[in-house]
């Protein structure tokens, strides 16, 4: 994709409150019409290679879902172009739709059908011949451990079961590119591991996978390459290993201090192995090549400068630290 931008002038459908809401609607004629401009994506360019598992990592509202929306024909880009293979996504939507499978962030399964019918009808929409779609549906239900509930309507299904069924459905027509938007959100650890196995297995068949996540562990475990996005921009791109190497020092010590002074910060910076010290309102982040022995020295130094330490947190090199480094915010904030 190249310089993708998306500016919403009205609330996107995905941002509207979901679920049954009762009561009188607010009188729209009493509200002044306000021009709305939300920049969801701000000139994003990146290339996902065929056969790789690519991750978009970022906090909620970073533009991940919008990116997936554009790539899956559901969102029209305000500027820029996207391609799947050699097809321009917006101009050749039908051809693109044949190549992709999508697992949405929120389950959108057909509540009027049974689990098995959801799969077979999906196959029918994609013109999978009848005997083939029955066979594939049976196989996928088995692999996703849904066989015993296959002929029930979805009413009693748990979140995890629905998510598994969503993924099975996306695989029904054997797409070349599989999009997974926050696939493990709300899944129990066991199901998450099953999901990871399925993703790896699918990828092993030469398929390309693009997933979004705000889970560092997941990105680290699954993705060949990652783009870290925030506020509609890519702030870092590379393999998980490369990205982790790019943090100065690698290790991170976070301190909560009382009575912080500039001299103290200066002393911290001159400690052996320290590459960067950042300080805001008594919160200090020390990036360094070592952690354990450094803490001891920091504590000594604090005693010398009569600075109170209220909290110490040591973090190993991780994508979480990387995100913190680039944005100054934790992923969960």
């Amino acid at each position, binding site marked *: 994709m190249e310089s993708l931008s998306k500016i919403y002038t009205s609330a996107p459908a995905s941002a509207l409150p979901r679920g049954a*809401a009762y009561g009188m609607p607010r009188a729209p004629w009493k509200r002044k019409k306000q021009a709305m401009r939300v920049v969801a994506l701000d000139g994003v360019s990146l290339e996902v290679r065929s056969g790789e598992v690519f991750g978009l990592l970022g906090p909620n509202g970073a533009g991940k879902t919008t990116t997936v929306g554009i790539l899956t024909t*559901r969102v029209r880009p305000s500027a820029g172009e996207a391609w799947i293979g050699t097809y321009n996504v917006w101009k050749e939507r039908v051809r693109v739709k044949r190549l992709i499978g999508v697992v949405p962030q929120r389950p959108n399964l057909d509540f009027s059908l049974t689990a098995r019918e959801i799969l077979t009808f999906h196959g*029918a929409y994609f013109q999978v011949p009848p005997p083939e779609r029955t066979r594939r549906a049976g196989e996928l239900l088995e692999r996703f451990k849904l066989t015993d509930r296959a002929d029930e309507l979805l009413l009693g299904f748990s979140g995890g079961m629905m998510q598994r069924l969503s993924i099975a459905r996306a695989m029904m027509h054997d797409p070349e590119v599989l999009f997974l938007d926050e696939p493990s959100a709300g899944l129990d650890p066991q199901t998450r591991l099953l999901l990871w196995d399925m993703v790896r297995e699918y990828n092993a068949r030469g398929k390309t996978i693009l997933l979004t996540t705000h889970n560092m562990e997941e990105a680290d475990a699954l993705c060949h390459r990652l783009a870290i996005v925030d506020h509609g921009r890519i702030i870092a791109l590379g393999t998980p290993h490369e990205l982790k190497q790019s943090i100065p020092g690698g290790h991170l010590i976070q301190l909560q201090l009382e009575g912080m002074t500039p001299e103290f910060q200066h002393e911290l910076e001159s400690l052996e192995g320290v590459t960067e010290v950042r300080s805001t309102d008594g919160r200090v982040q020390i990036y360094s090549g070592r952690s354990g022995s450094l803490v001891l020295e920091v504590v000594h130094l604090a005693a010398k400068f009569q600075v109170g330490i209220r909290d110490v947190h040591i973090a190993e090199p991780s994508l979480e630290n990387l995100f913190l480094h680039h944005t100054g915010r934790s992923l969960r904030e």
Partner: protein
Amino acid sequence: MNLRTFLAMLKRDAHVARRNFVTLLVQTLLQPMFFVFIFGRVMTTSGLMAMSYKMLLLPGIIAISMMMAGIMAVAMPLVAEFQFTREIEDRLLAPMEIEWLAMEKVTAGMIQALAAGFVVLPTAWLVMGRVSLSTDHLLLFVVIALLVASLAASIGLTLGCSVGQTQIGLMFSLVLAPMIFFGCAYYPWKTLDPFPILQRVVLLNPVVYASEGLRGALVPKYPHLPVSAALAALVLFNALFILLGLRQFRRKAVS
């Protein structure tokens, strides 16, 4: 256009309709039957209304039943599928232009509207006590029934893609109720002569042409709008609501 995908989706809707057959039947049949029984049977037999009222009522009841069945069949699932369950997303991602998905919904609604007419006509005829209907204009009846069915479905498409899930109640009282009561279903358009302004205003209501058109085909001896005018208006409203519905559908489907 991708015929096999289109047909698969139609098959899905038929499958769901079959599963909800009894509910659908009750929903379509019960209310018009009460109406027909009270006004077409009780009131006429008791002498409170002229026997000829039966003849005027029957085509109107068919028009209303078809319109409501078609509108409901398209609008209600669309409101739910776009906003609540989002299950339409799977079909939006099927290898077919999304406009054809909208047309598939219209086709499904049209079939349900025709089925409603097919069920209500003989039942109402029996409940009322076998009024004599004209069979001279059978072809005209079929054409008008088809136009009414597709009109109902395209109005359903427009409403289903325009109404929020919190506004469904409002849709009934603000849109559907006036359409029914000012739709010349329970009285011929001619009886509005003493209300000249109202008589002109109701011409904006597409249901008027459904009722009057069916009157022209089934009970041509009784007063009704010229058949050619009813046909022209039905075609025009069909075009209008298809275009409007497709526009609203596109807005809902793509952000």
